[in-house]
């Protein structure tokens, strides 16, 4: 059976499938549950400085099996309470990556510093959140801002820092390069696509917040293009996210340049058992293709020398 273990940003992972931030990550028991179900690592809910209730419902809309639209609004219990949840996941022996979001470089740095003391092995920066001052523009849509945020965080923590890149921009590779320049240990790409649904009978948006983020199979080609372009531009590892539902999707991302993968929306349609299925199926697929170690396949679709 092919070896699925990978090392990403200095973190050894038993398999490349990480639980994506925002799914099952609010409670420590759920993080532990995803770990026990076979995830290679679990990423927490994005945690902020203060508790946030998130937006009122409706906050989700599904499109058959090909998409999920969400405008949750970053609900989270806040950094003061969250360490207790992480503790519950640590007791289960999980490999945990802490996700944080802020409205400024200073806020990101302070949160990352606190998250780093809870026993997580890395920090993932959620750069797809609104400006503290503005409304709607993502904090991580400007390369200069991304570099500043990453630099501030890296100065305050000893753990690897992963920058999660937004696709809602004309040049995601430039954002990734900026993050690398700021000292990021890895890039994860992509976060959700800006999207909207309207109910024609009620003549209003379906979600209470209106605009939300699209995830699931529909965004896989977009995620793949971003990973492809980012891989060509940076030397640090890339983590692929966006519409991975099966082993073939996973291997597409790996061959595009991803060293690890995040799984989120697939859990809606397949349940938490999706981790065991993905690991099993990817091993079988690699065997079929004559690949003995997953790490051998990273970026092979590029005609890089």
């Amino acid at each position, binding site marked *: 059976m092919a070896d699925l273990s990978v090392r990403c940003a200095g973190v050894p992972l038993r398999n490349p499938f990480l639980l994506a931030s925002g799914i099952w990550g*609010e409670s420590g028991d759920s993080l532990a549950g995803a770990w026990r179900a076979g995830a290679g690592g679990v990423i927490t809910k994005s945690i902020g400085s203060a508790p946030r209730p*998130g937006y009122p419902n409706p906050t989700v809309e599904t499109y058959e099996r090909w998409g999920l639209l969400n405008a949750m609004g970053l609900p989270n219990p806040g950094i003061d309470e969250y360490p207790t949840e992480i503790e519950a996941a640590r007791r289960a022996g999980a490999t945990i990556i802490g996700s944080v979001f802020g409205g400024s470089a200073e806020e990101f740095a302070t949160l990352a510093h606190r998250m780093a003391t809870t026993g997580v092995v890395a920090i993932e920066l959620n750069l797809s959140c609104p400006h503290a001052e503005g409304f709607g523009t993502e904090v991580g849509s400007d390369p200069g801002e991304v570099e500043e945020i990453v630099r501030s965080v890296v100065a305050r923590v000893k753990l690897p820092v992963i920058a999660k890149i937004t696709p809602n921009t004309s040049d995601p590779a430039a954002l990734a390069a900026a993050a690398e320049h700021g000292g990021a240990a890895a890039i994860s790409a992509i976060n959700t696509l800006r999207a909207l649904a309207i109910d024609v009978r*009620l003549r209003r948006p379906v979600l209470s917040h209106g605009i939300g983020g699209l995830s699931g199979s529909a965004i896989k080609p977009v995620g793949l293009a971003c990973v492809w372009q980012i891989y060509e531009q940076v030397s640090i590892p890339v983590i692929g996210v966006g519409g991975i539902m099966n082993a073939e999707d996973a291997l597409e991302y790996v061959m595009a340049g991803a060293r690890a993968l995040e799984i989120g929306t697939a859990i809606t349609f397949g349940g938490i058992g999706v981790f065991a299925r993905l690991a099993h199926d990817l091993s079988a697929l690699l065997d079929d293709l004559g690949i003995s170690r997953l790490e051998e396949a990273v970026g092979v679709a590029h005609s890089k020398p």
Partner: protein
Amino acid sequence: MRTIVRVTDRILETPSTVTLRFPYEPRAEPGQFVMVWIPGDDELPMSLSYPSTASKGITVKVMGDTSRRIQTIQPGAFLGIRGPYGNRFDLRPRRILVVGGGSGAAVLAPAAEAARVLGASVVVALGATRSSELLFRDRFIAMGARVEVATDDGSEGEHGFVTAVADRVLAGEAFDAVWTCGPEVMMRKVVDSATMRGVPVYCSMERHMKCALGLCDACAIGPYHVCIDGPVFPADRVRSLPDFGAFHRDPSGRRVKF
């Protein structure tokens, strides 16, 4: 994902509780819930008090701002419905004790009806603050259940809590199962009481929900999610949970005492 329906009927069940009926085709079983969108307002989980017909129903007690607004909804108003979600009551027991408090009867009445259709004998311990708030008392009687009542103010039946009535009934008769729904502190007592006597007991739980799809963790309790592992939970699952009857989560995910 959502079906937009028009409310056909609004029935005042008690001074604090209203049933709304609406056409919704998807098949549902007693115990299951739907997510109800009040356009422009909120979307929240509601158990189906009438799950088994094309005309479905939800029964809402005033608990907070949104339920207060739901109560003002008139026939002709639009609702967005998705679901049904969740699991259902196991209808195999032959002798069932149903213990309802608060608005729990909204969940228990359709389950009891289904059990009666299958020939089970049903005893109902029904509690409320006062006589006028005894939800679905007449519905339980009409289905051929024996109904024992408790009111906080003694205006009808036993003067006290429904848990005391349930204890007395459990001590005097044999049951294959206890079904309970109501304030979680009440359900905890019923679970302990039935378990002590070796009777399987099932609780219909509720938690704040956002997605109802098993994704967002808003309704997480221990290793379970009420939306996909419940809302009906057997005693052996809930008894091991430190949160059961003690804590729930607010919309931010912080643990809050009941």
